[in-house]
């Protein structure tokens, strides 16, 4: 099919933009992760300078430096950061599911006229500043914060709970920040289910728990997977949450990489760390792409 020039423009403008500002930058990260760090501005020795011609380009392939990747493997800080990020993001994803499922279930089974309102209410916090929502938890979780005040006043605890500055605070932050991303796909998969299936199960003698475990839960699996991916993938590389809510012993790769980049100014190592992070999320990212998940707040 031949396309007129306005149609070509509609395609090439965003396509070209994404290649220039999404794909090409990632290629540059790969390039810099393979160069050596230097005390210069910018702080790395360039590899692959096309201006010196293709022959020189290929000659330099031999000079590629895997020093940045080797230093990642040597440095326990990086290994620990990756493992800790995967663990915290994984646990937080499970917690988010546990919080979101009853909510999404309640929303999907609410009287039809309330449902659009409930969806808007569940999604609205996503629109307000992420930074501010994380900040709000500092005042709540601190040792002398609101939560401890309330719990002590109610007589539930006598000593303040030490949550702020721990991995728990980071997980609470992730659950809170990414909750809308989990609720929406769950709600959509639950609301789409045919109520006749539950009636049929009831007619066949299934109790309410059996109906949930054998009918509702398996049918919502698609929503669970979509929601889990939309929480887990961004949470692995989270920077703001561990920085504001975590403590000095909280390790997350987004934070480690940020420090390497801005404070230590070791760009090759930071680039290599970013590439490894991308490699870690590549499989979930590919599944996400395959599922064509379009349910975002």
């Amino acid at each position, binding site marked *: *099919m031949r*396309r007129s020039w*306005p*149609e070509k*423009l*509609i*395609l090439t*403008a*965003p*396509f070209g*933009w*994404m*290649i220039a*500002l*999404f*794909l*090409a*930058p*990632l290629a*540059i990260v790969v390039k810099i992760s393979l160069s050596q760090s230097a005390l210069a501005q910018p702080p790395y020795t360039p590899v692959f300078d096309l201006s010196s011609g293709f022959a020189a380009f290929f000659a330099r392939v031999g000079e590629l430096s895997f020093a940045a990747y080797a230093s990642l493997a040597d440095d326990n800080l990086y290994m620990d950061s990756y493992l800790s990020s995967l663990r915290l993001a994984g646990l937080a994803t499970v917690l988010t599911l546990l*919080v979101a499922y*009853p*909510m999404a*279930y*309640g929303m999907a089974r*609410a*009287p039809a006229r309330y449902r659009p309102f*409930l969806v*808007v209410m569940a999604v609205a916090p996503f*629109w*307000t*500043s*992420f*930074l*501010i929502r994380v*900040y*709000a938890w500092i*005042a*709540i979780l601190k040792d*002398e*914060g*609101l939560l401890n005040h309330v719990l002590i006043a109610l007589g539930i605890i006598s000593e303040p709970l030490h949550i702020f500055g721990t991995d728990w605070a980071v997980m609470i932050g992730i659950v809170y920040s990414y*909750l809308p991303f989990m609720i929406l796909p769950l709600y959509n998969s639950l609301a789409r289910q045919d109520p006749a299936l539950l009636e049929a199960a009831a007619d066949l003698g299934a109790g309410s728990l059996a109906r949930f475990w054998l009918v509702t839960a398996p049918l919502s699996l698609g929503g669970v997977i979509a929601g889990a991916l939309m929480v887990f*993938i*961004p949470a692995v590389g*989270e*920077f703001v949450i561990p920085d*504001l809510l975590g403590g000095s012993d909280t390790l997350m790769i*987004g934070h480690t*990489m*940020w420090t390497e980049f801005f404070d230590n100014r070791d760009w090759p190592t930071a*680039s290599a760390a*970013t590439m490894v*992070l*991308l490699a870690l999320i590549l499989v979930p990212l590919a599944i*996400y*792409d395959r599922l*064509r998940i*379009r349910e*975002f707040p």
Partner: protein
Amino acid sequence: MWRGTGAFRLTSLLFGFAFLYAPIVVLVVYSFNASRLVTVWGGFSTRWYSALFADAQIVSSAWISLRVAFLSALIATVLGACAAVALARFERFSGRGLFAAMIMAPLVMPEVITGLSLLLLFVALDIPRGLGTVILGHATMGMCFVAVLVRERVEGVDRALEEAAMDLGASPAQTLLRVTVPLAAPAIISGYLLAFTLSLDDFVIASFTSGPGSTTLPMRIFSAVRLGVSPEINAAATLLIGVVALCLALYGAAHVLMQERTKKG
């Protein structure tokens, strides 16, 4: 309708929404606290708001953020709408899979990756960092969200309407401008608002792409937050939430409009 297991559902809704909104309510309430301490209520006061407006750095950063959000959302909306039409209407073109993946990935990819890669691009091309580079970064991020939002709407547009226009002699471009775009207008408007608020809120990408003189409001807030909780930040946060609530109300209006059109269509 709340019979039987209804009590459980009602409780989970109540607890869920309390969890979602309590921190925001606490934040807003304490921005009007006369006391500097977060846990002590010292009476109602708007002193932190006056302190905020007297802070020249905060005010100038707020203007920078608004300018960046206005312009980047504009670019994001045009490009995102184009991408949406391309994905919804052009079934076959080379690189379709790559294009779709590039539009989808930034929605979930950790922002540190996009931020770092953009910075390295600007350094490699020797582009001085400033307002322009932040706008480029936010436009790239925003267009993906706009594209996903508008694509759904364009796919919902009845093809027969477009075919009718073509039968009556309209060129594909005319059909697009006179039929498809007006029908997708509510989604395009809400896409703009989403891109605007995302840009206004973004901290990570702005930190990587900004230069001297282009410190955005979230960057300013972040460095203040690192020093601890303060009522001024609560006041700034409350104002930001107010702006977003306004955008959300407009978005809601656009949504209602969209549904009315769907009913008529």
